[in-house]
């Protein structure tokens, strides 16, 4: 827990956090506890016991310009976690705003919309629509991918960010892979492309099925990621001059507090809320909220 957060906890109030101090609007949240992208859909999919209004905010499921339908989503359990093959399933920004915009307008929890896709024009079109949508306080975008040529990728990322920036004057959080190099992070920071870094995109996993020789793949969510995440947050916190948001593997109060203690400005809780819907609120309470 940072000194500011400890002071706030001592004072009996959850620490207010600004995830976009460089942005003219800022992104001030009542506390540093958020839900990761898609964990409550578009805010319409919370289990009993999970009170969104108590949280710092939530990140929505992905939104693209046009409806996106692919293979049917699947969830496969692994030891201590799961593989989630969700794809970008969504009805497109127009329908998302029509169906969930009223919910976001009324929401006590600030809404950060997760943009999906990699075409700058498409991203810009989505951002333009979202900027005019009440309740939306920020955007989150996956930048870079693991195992690829970082030079070319950084250029593509810059194009994507600039397109979104030009289209919408909303704070922008970039979710990057855990394996992103220090050099790439430094470039993102130096070019002032983004307001906060979210660590990390879920890694890809595979589960082999001995019975039929097939396999299931998907984004890996589970407890084993928490120490990896804490280690990377600790490495970056010393020199990255942007708020870091810890996202991935947090399943307990202790894991959330550990990320904050080593330098995260906020945490995003993931699939753990499907099992323990009271966890986010316990973290808020532990921080004095």
């Amino acid at each position, binding site marked *: 827990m940072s000194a500011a957060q400890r002071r706030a906890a001592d004072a009996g109030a959850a620490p207010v956090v600004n995830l976009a101090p460089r942005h003219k609007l800022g992104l001030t949240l009542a506390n540093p506890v958020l839900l990761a992208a*898609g*964990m*409550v*859909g578009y805010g*319409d*999919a*919370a*289990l*009993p*016991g999970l009170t969104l209004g108590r949280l710092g905010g939530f990140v929505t*499921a992905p939104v693209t310009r046009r409806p996106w*339908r692919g293979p*049917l*989503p*699947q*969830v496969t*359990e*692994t*030891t*201590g*976690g*799961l593989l*989630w093959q*969700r794809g970008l*399933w969504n009805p497109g920004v127009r329908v998302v705003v029509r169906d969930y915009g009223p919910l976001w307008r009324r929401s006590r929890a600030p809404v950060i919309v997760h943009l999906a896709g990699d075409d700058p024009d498409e991203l810009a079109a989505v951002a333009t629509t979202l900027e005019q949508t009440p309740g939306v306080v920020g955007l989150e975008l996956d930048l870079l991918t693991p195992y690829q040529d970082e030079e070319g990728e950084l250029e593509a990322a810059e194009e994507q960010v600039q397109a979104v920036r030009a289209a919408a004057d909303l704070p922008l959080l970039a979710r990057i892979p855990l394996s992103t190099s220090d050099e790439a992070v430094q470039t993102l920071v130096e070019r002032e492309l983004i307001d906060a870094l979210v660590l990390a995109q879920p890694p890809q996993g595979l589960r082999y099925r001995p019975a039929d020789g097939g396999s299931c793949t998907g984004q890996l969510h*589970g*407890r084993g990621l928490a120490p990896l995440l804490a280690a990377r947050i600790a490495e970056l916190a010393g020199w990255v001059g942007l708020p870091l948001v810890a996202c991935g593997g947090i*399943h307990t109060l202790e894991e959330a507090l550990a990320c904050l203690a080593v330098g995260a400005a906020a945490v995003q809780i993931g*699939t753990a809320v*499907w*099992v*323990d*819907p*009271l966890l986010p609120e316990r973290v808020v309470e532990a921080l004095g909220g």
Partner: protein
Amino acid sequence: MTPTAVLTERTELGQGLLLRVQARPELLACRPGQFLLLRCGHAWTPYLRRALFPVDVGHDSLAFWIDSLADEGIAWLSRRQVGDVLDLIGPLGKGFALQTQQRRLLLVGEAAQVAPLLALMQVQLSRQGSVVLLLQAPTAAALLPPGALPPSVEYYTATDDGTAGSADALDSLLAEVMPWADALAAAGSPAFLRRVQRRVAAARPEPFRGFAQAMAPVPLPCGSGACLACLVDTGRGHHRACQRGPVFDLTELAL
């Protein structure tokens, strides 16, 4: 774990177990076809909660029949003893809807998925309605024992190995009972529900909406509508079974 129920009774029933739990009032609002989510221990393995369909809901308790221990989470539940606390949340989803005038209920299911049908059976009997239950199973041993059912329920069976009714008995039984029924509820695998769909179409070319309802044969991993693994194709788009279902009109399921 947040304890919301206590195991009070644990008895063998057929190949499975009947578990009765004393539960918090909000859980007792679970209607037939709705489900509860059970957390299976502290260890995050198995990771996800398990969807459970009560077979009976009383004024302060509810009962589950678990008949297969193949799933790790259900196996965990089977090892609980009387006095153990459980972390259940719910009720979730939308269940069966029976109109007051629907008095003759035909239940048709595969034994492994019969739980929500048994809950509906209890409700129908409590309002003095009539119930016929047609159950299909691989073997006689996998069927619900007749003694577990109220005497007023007409019970017919079909088994893949012919030990309790021949494999194709289901089709003839359906053809025979369908004209009597003014409501049908089904639960089973996609192949089983397709079979029931064909029989309904043959017996009632223009069934009124609400005549035949079915449990969507999909997993319910998150139970909240977030994961989308329970998407159901209704021919007019995909819908989340855990929110709009898991009970759908049988005629709208694209199986």
